[in-house]
């Protein structure tokens, strides 16, 4: 297979000026990331700082209600409240070992920005985060968190002023500042070697979950489910199970409002192949190859592309990709709060929403392992607004 590709997807579609830092990263994947010293320090950070291993929780009440055996991998319990920190600690450590002084990141909702700022503070690095001006207004709380952690948040006022344009701005900054700056990309997207490197940092999710599940249940789950925006929690969860033919893999995308012609983020379900942000993958685009705005009630799923490895897992049939609407995710959010005492992120609520909506079509008694990628405290405002407007429209 061609270097940096997953089947037909992946590659390095970047300006020549970014090839030297990408080639440097490729070498670092071999010399630094695979070294014993890196492994030792990374494991120590994940254990003592991030709080790994995260718990595996059986949903006793929901399991009974659904006639399934439902388990949650609790990434919401990781430091900063989501799986994002696994990646930023890995890339932060790599940055330090490369001898660079600054971590650069993009962020949509602010979760990856917070996780990057956290890694930078812990590891003694400078931190610059690009964030769309629209997102800055929507997620003011996370902007304050990043600033408290010492990061400089740069507003992006071009294009859609959201995540996609924040990535453009971060790539531009990286072109100019590559000598002392590492671009800490937040998901398994972008040019090679990012999708592979970030997958490897996130693969700890599936490794732990597989071992925990085996220990508790004595076998492998029948089905593994995760939400997919860029797809980093999903690939981190799936990676360990891809070689296990008995385990069905399901990725859940955001269908938006579900109305015809609505903006959504169901890239794998409804998109087509193209090149964006350095990689060939499925995209939401016009017939002329212009990138379309995306939407989801879950800010972390709001991206018009997806990791190239997911495009390949879909093409090969090894994983199945489905989508659920904002309303399904909101219903699942409330259900998990009330039945299990866990407040899930709206992103993870999409994965759960699919299980709840489709439980009848899953063989009774099946064991389902779901990646609860983050906690939902960050989403309270969105949830309250959405529930209020649901109530209003029902009252009409």
């Amino acid at each position: 297979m061609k270097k940096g590709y997953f089947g037909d997807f992946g590659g390095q579609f970047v300006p020549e000026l970014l090839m030297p830092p990408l080639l440097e990263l490729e070498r670092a994947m071999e010399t630094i990331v695979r070294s014993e010293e890196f492994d030792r320090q990374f494991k120590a950070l994940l254990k003592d700082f991030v709080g790994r291993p995260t718990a595996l929780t059986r949903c006793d009440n929901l399991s009974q209600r659904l006639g399934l055996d439902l388990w949650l991998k609790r990434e919401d319990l990781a430091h900063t409240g989501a799986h994002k920190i696994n990646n930023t600690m890995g890339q932060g450590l790599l940055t330090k070992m490369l001898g660079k002084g600054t971590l650069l990141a993009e962020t949509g909702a602010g979760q990856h920005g917070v996780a990057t700022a956290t890694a930078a503070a812990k590891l003694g690095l400078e931190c610059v985060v690009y964030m769309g001006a629209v997102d800055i207004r929507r997620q003011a709380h996370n902007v304050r968190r990043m600033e408290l952690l010492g990061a400089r948040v740069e507003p992006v006022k071009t294009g859609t002023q959201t995540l996609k344009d924040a990535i453009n701005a971060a790539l531009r900054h990286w072109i100019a500042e590559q000598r002392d700056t590492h671009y800490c990309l937040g998901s398994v997207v972008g040019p090679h070697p990012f999708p592979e490197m970030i997958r490897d940092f996130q693969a700890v999710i599936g490794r732990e979950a597989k071992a925990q599940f085996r220990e508790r249940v004595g076998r492998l789950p029948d089905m593994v489910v995760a939400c997919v925006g860029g797809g980093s929690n999903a690939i981190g969860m799936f990676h360990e199970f891809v070689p296990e033919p008995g385990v069905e893999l399901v990725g859940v995308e955001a269908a938006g409002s579900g109305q015809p012609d609505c903006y959504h983020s169901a890239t794998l379900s409804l998109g087509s192949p193209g090149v964006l942000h350095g990689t060939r993958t499925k995209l939401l685009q016009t017939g002329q190859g212009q990138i379309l705005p995306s939407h989801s009630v879950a800010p972390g799923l709001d991206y018009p592309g997806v990791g190239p490895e997911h495009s390949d897992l879909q093409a090969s049939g090894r994983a199945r990709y489905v989508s659920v609407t904002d309303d399904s995710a909101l219903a699942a959010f409330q259900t998990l709060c009330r039945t299990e005492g866990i407040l899930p992120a709206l992103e993870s609520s999409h994965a759960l929403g699919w299980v709840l909506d489709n439980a009848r079509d899953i063989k009774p008694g099946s064991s389902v392992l779901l990646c609860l990628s983050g906690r939902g405290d960050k989403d309270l405002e969105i949830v309250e607004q959405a529930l209020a407007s649901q109530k209003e429209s029902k009252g009409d």
Partner: protein
Amino acid sequence: MKSSLLTEKIRAANASGRIALIPFLPAGFPDKDRFWEELAALDAAGADIIEIGMPFSDPVADGPVVERASLQALAQGVDLAWILGELAARRAGFSAALVLMGYLNPVLQYGVAAFARDASRAGVSGVILADLPFEEAVDIKRILTAQGLDLVPLVGLNTSRERLAMYAAQATGFAYFVSVLGTTGERRTLPEEVRQKLAVARQVFDIPVALGFGLKTPDQLKGLEGLVDAAVFGSALIKHLEAGGKSAEFMAAWS
């Protein structure tokens, strides 16, 4: 190998004792009609080659001026079909050679083979794709070459001698040397390393070397005599036009 019109144009300018002038104008800027007027004016004012920008929603190699102009063009419905159709209708109307510059995805969705065929029929001589580095260019380059189109490589201050040589072994037309480690957009001064690196590029490439990104005034080229065969300017020209200036005035300073 068939000689390239782009190479010939630059060599002809050099032979008459000047560097070749390559203005860049985003297609459909400042609007769909005036674009063709400005293009004709640039041609009449002595442009040797004109780069026409193919707009893309996510132009990562461009600074704010070109990005804004591209998004404006998109908002007016400018797409590849319009650019290639209008160019075909005006074929042979320009004495400057034409190059299309943009990003890969719109070309992929148009279809690379169809793009190469239609661009060639429309009188285009070369293509620059800002997000297509050497490693990913093999198949596309073959398709463009088959239609007589040059794929002009972008290289820069951080391109190693080895990578320059990789490009040089295959490139036709001219090599585009990016003057700054950054995006398009005018700078007051060029970094000191430009001179040194340009000298290396001149050794490695047989084809002419054009300098671009960050050019605003001819003064910036002082000290680079003999190292640069052509100069590309985009953002400064766009700003000049936005401020109500004329292409001919802008070109006059460079001629």
